[in-house]
């Protein structure tokens, strides 16, 4: 649980973050979105005290984050940034071992953790551990950056545009991997991005920041249906709203009784994918198969159209 209470940050005359209060539930993904200069990165960096707030408090699991010295606090909080920030003079294994080494873990425990994380990120420990970061592709470097942030098993992971430098295909894969890893470690993730697509894909809750203030803090569905301000609306993009609405729900929620012809779709796919398949194949309905492969009903063009409609 992260409780941000009345946080303000001023640099001289300019107020970068203005009286922000947010409560972030444990084991969730919260995405902070906003344009550049909205104060979203500053807000993130105040959680692990890379930036000290001018006023206000931040509590992690009820404890004020100023009770520990900054460097000790940061060893307990994962931090991944755009462009990965890997240490170029250290091997992949040494990079991942950074925080455990600082914490004084014994060799065997560090080695086991490094191997576990590399395997989890689909990098062969024997092949990648001894390499230097510049010998890796962009996507691999990014994965190592996240692995380093998770090495000391932090309860909280802060990410500042972690996928910003990746091409679209690798980015989509990295986002899915992140969600899988979040489930695996039950980490509380706070992620900053300016990419709405990314926000809707990853977030349990989204905080929209504008000129240093949080203008809306809501679940993706709420935000789509009831954008708090015209700014939020423009950020979502009026033309994208029905599709985003479909994208955040799975086919399982839209299943209707009945049968349909042709190729089936999995109930775990998003409704947007179902719509896309319907339009592309020119059918009115698709059969839906459950996780066990049995047909559990159909999803229809009409049904999806209703679900995509905003409030009257």
């Amino acid at each position, binding site marked *: 649980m992260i409780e941000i209470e009345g946080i303000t940050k001023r640099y001289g005359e300019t107020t970068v973050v203005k009286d922000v209060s947010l409560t972030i539930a444990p084991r969730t993904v919260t995405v902070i979105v906003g344009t550049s200069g909205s104060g979203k990165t500053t807000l993130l960096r105040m959680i692990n005290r*890379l930036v000290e707030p001018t006023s206000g408090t931040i509590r992690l699991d009820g404890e004020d984050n100023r009770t520990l010295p900054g460097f000790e606090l*940061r060893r307990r909080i994962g*931090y991944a940034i755009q*462009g990965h920030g*890997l240490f*170029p*003079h250290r091997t992949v294994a040494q990079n991942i071992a950074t925080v455990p080494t*600082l914490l004084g873990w014994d060799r065997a425990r560090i080695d086991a953790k490094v191997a576990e994380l590399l395997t989890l990120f689909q990098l062969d420990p024997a092949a990648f551990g001894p390499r*230097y970061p510049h010998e890796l592709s962009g996507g691999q470097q990014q994965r190592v950056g996240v692995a380093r942030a998770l090495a000391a098993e932090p309860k909280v992971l802060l990410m500042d545009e972690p996928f910003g430098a990746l091409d679209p295909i690798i980015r989509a894969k990295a986002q899915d991997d992140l969600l899988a890893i979040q489930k695996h470690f039950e980490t509380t993730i706070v992620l900053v991005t300016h990419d709405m697509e990314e926000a809707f894909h990853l977030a349990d809750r989204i905080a929209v920041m504008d000129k240093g203030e949080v203008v809306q803090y809501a679940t993706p569905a709420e935000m789509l249906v009831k954008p708090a301000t015209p700014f939020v609306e423009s950020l979502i993009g009026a033309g994208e709203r029905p599709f985003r609405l479909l994208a955040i729900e799975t086919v399982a929620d839209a299943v209707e009784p009945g049968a349909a012809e042709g190729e089936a779709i999995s109930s775990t796919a998003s409704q947007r994918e179902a719509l896309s398949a319907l339009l592309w194949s020119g059918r009115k309905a698709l059969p839906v198969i459950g996780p066990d492969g049995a047909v559990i009903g159909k999803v229809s063009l009409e049904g999806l159209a209703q679900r995509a409609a905003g409030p009257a």
Partner: protein
Amino acid sequence: MLRLPNLIRLLAFAVLIAFLTQPQWFEPLLRPLVQQNAPAIYNQGSLLQLTLLHLRTVAIATAGATVVALALAILVTRPSGAEFLPLSRSLVNIGQTFPPVAVLALAVPIFGFGEKPTLIALFLYGLLPIFENALTGLTTLPPAIMEAARGTGMTGRQRLMKVELPLAMPVILAGIRLSVVISLATATIGSTVAARTLGEVIIAGLQSNNLAFVVQGGLIVAVLAVLIHDGLQAAERRLGSRVGR
């Protein structure tokens, strides 16, 4: 494995060792440079011993300059020491602008003849390249890496030792290399105040109008400078490829 440039370096090193240990082998080569009856090979001391003393003087002066310049550069790149940057800059600049000969002239009355004034002159002269390079190396580190170092919870000292110095090392080494090469050449003037360096050979040649002495003293210094320069540069490159600069 042995490419041409390295082959030439190896050859130069072999010739240098041969010349220092068995100078009489080279007498026929130098003979045409001297007048009748004059010695063609330096005969007022061992060339090998002078070379070793020369190298020792340079090593001590550069080591001292490295310690002081690096310490200053580290100090002024810490937040608490930033205000000393202009002062440190002026100090090392004065060290560089003051001609070594003038330093010798001023130091002799205080420290007497011998090695000390030379060490002081070389030390002052060597500060600037090391200081400026260390400063450049420590202030141009990639921001993402510095951010990551703070974000992983390293203390200021850990960031310096584990990240900043290793990453800046190739640039710092380049400064030390410059300083060493300058000192190797400059050390010869130490012999004007009776420091035992290869300058003795050159000065003896000038005094007795013996061109062979001047040539052999000059060549030994030149070959030393080239070999040490290349050796240090190879070390830098090795480090540089590691840190991806």
